[in-house]
């Protein structure tokens, strides 16, 4: 079923409501999914592909508007523009520069990057959109193995509201240690990528009787302890709720679990502790209870009729005084991204990059495609100790095939290959 012509506007989904309240140049709430191709990008072809794709993804073809009581997403009739990448990844999406869209499509040599404001969608939705753009960039016509259209009602639904229950669950909240440093004087983040074999890392994880994500969280926690010398370390791991709740929405539908470690220990000791926390928090009803609480907040009459600006003040305060204090860093692993076989000839790597802001100055995004796992660590501070520590530690478990970054050398560009 296609959407009605006059119905092209959306209330923000439950998770999205907080982002417009706090997002700024210093705290941009922007993430990037990118594809590194085997050849240089043709700008005109990419522009055509983007214009074709946006017509089939109404949830992306919107702009953010400020209503009297809530922000909302309104249809955007202007065609989006692809832009040459000139600024650092994950900078604030300025509507004036993006023709009103909540995303940017950048290109630079072999890389196509889709940077999204989190109010629009999450990592899954962004990857689906990027895949469709790439498909339309390479081919004409349809393919059953890829979603090229996202205009069914279930593609644009607010799945939080649909799957909310009646009972809440209260998570354990611990004040977390933060990674300190001198903030960088640029918008966006520096990114350090490490590439390794997904299957090799999986073998290592299996030898510890665990999963890749748990192993990476354990190594990351150990690195943070080594740098900060104190705890507790709390790693936030976003969870894609679509598989758990059978949803196909392209809008936000993820929640987070917090992995807490009070003291430094060996990997062998950390892994079962982390595994148990994953197991407890990945329980379907526990997760439902978490977002049910947020959905219920949204339905409170007092909150509904409060003016947008007033709500924004409170949401910002809640974020600064609560949410930010209980997290050390974010690690997101959207899992293995698959592309149709005929696309694989053209795509070398996929990347997933998170924004970095005070106090979560260093975060990690992981994307795996064709057995190539790209670990992207974003950095909003000058100090690189944690990143070096993590990659060195990871290298001891599973050798990295390649490392590269966007730091630039004297000439401005660097691509470190091992």
């Amino acid at each position: 079923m296609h959407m009605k012509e006059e119905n092209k506007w959306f209330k923000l989904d439950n998770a999205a409501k907080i982002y417009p309240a706090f997002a700024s140049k210093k705290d941009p709430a922007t993430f990037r999914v990118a594809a590194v191709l085997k050849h240089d990008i043709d700008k005109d072809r990419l522009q055509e592909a983007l214009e074709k794709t946006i017509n089939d993804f109404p949830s992306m073809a919107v702009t953010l508007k400020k209503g009297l009581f809530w922000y909302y997403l309104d249809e955007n009739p202007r065609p989006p523009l692809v832009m040459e990448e000139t600024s650092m990844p994950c900078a604030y999406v300025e509507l004036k520069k993006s023709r009103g869209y909540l995303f940017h499509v950048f290109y630079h040599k072999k890389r196509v990057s889709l940077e999204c404001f989190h109010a629009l969608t999450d990592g899954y939705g962004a990857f689906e959109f990027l895949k469709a753009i790439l498909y339309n960039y390479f081919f004409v016509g349809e393919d059953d193995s890829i979603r090229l259209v996202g205009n069914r009602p279930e593609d644009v639904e607010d799945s939080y509201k649909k799957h909310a229950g009646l009972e809440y669950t209260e998570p354990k909240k611990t004040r977390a240690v933060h990674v300190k440093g001198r903030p960088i004087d640029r918008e966006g983040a520096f990114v350090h990528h490490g590439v390794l074999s997904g299957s090799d890392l999986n073998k290592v994880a299996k030898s510890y009787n665990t999963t890749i994500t748990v192993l990476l969280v354990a190594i990351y926690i150990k690195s943070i302890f080594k740098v900060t010398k104190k705890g507790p370390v709390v790693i936030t791991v976003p969870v894609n709720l679509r598989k758990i709740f059978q949803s196909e929405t392209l809008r936000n539908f993820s929640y987070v679990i917090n992995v807490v470690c009070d003291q430094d220990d060996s990997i062998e000791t950390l892994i079962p502790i982390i595994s148990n926390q994953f197991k407890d928090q990945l329980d379907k009803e526990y997760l439902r209870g978490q977002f049910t609480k947020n959905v219920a907040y949204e339905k409170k009459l007092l909150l509904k009729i409060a003016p947008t600006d007033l709500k924004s003040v409170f949401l910002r305060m809640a974020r600064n005084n609560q949410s930010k204090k209980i997290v050390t860093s974010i690690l997101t692993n959207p899992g293995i991204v698959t592309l149709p076989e005929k696309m694989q000839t053209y795509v070398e790597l996929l990347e997933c990059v998170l924004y970095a802001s005070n106090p979560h100055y260093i975060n990690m995004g992981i994307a795996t495609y064709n057995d190539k796992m790209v670990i992207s660590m974003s950095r909003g501070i000058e100090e690189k100790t944690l990143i070096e520590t993590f990659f060195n530690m990871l290298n001891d478990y599973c050798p990295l095939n390649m490392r590269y970054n966007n730091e630039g050398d004297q000439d401005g560009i660097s691509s470190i290959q091992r």
Partner: protein
Amino acid sequence: MEYPVYKDKRKPFMKKLFIIHLMSLVLCLVLPWFIYVHGSFTFLFLAYFTVKKYRGFKALFALFSSVLVMLLMFDMADFKLTWSLSYVFPSFIIAITSLMFLIILVRKKKWHQYYSMHSYLIMVNLLVGLLMILGFMQSIVLGIVTLSIFAASLIAIWIRVGKKYYRNLFRFIHV
């Protein structure tokens, strides 16, 4: 895997401007006449922001609002709001509403995008009514003229733009 060369560094200009503005505000408390300097500075500060952010009618609305804020501040020099509330405020609304009225007549297609501005104008007009009832506005005639022009603009919108406008207005006020 290459990334481009980045040149844009963060410019702390706005932060500095904000600090100067705050200092100017403190100075007003020590030197009452300084409110005229502070008012002018506030106008420049707001005008810079709004012109940078908005275009067209929205920019004009914001610029008018900046002038209004400046005049309200000037009127605050004697710790009373007199001529600004009675004359400047309604004049400001009359000017904006008339402009809006004109745009409705000549740019029908474009108009449906301005429902947010119109919603704010509704609220400002309600404020005029409230100020009249509470006796803060000395010029009742001007107040009545303001509200009448506004009512006329509502009718004009209904006739010229109709359904689409009210559909957008519904989006704007959804709960």
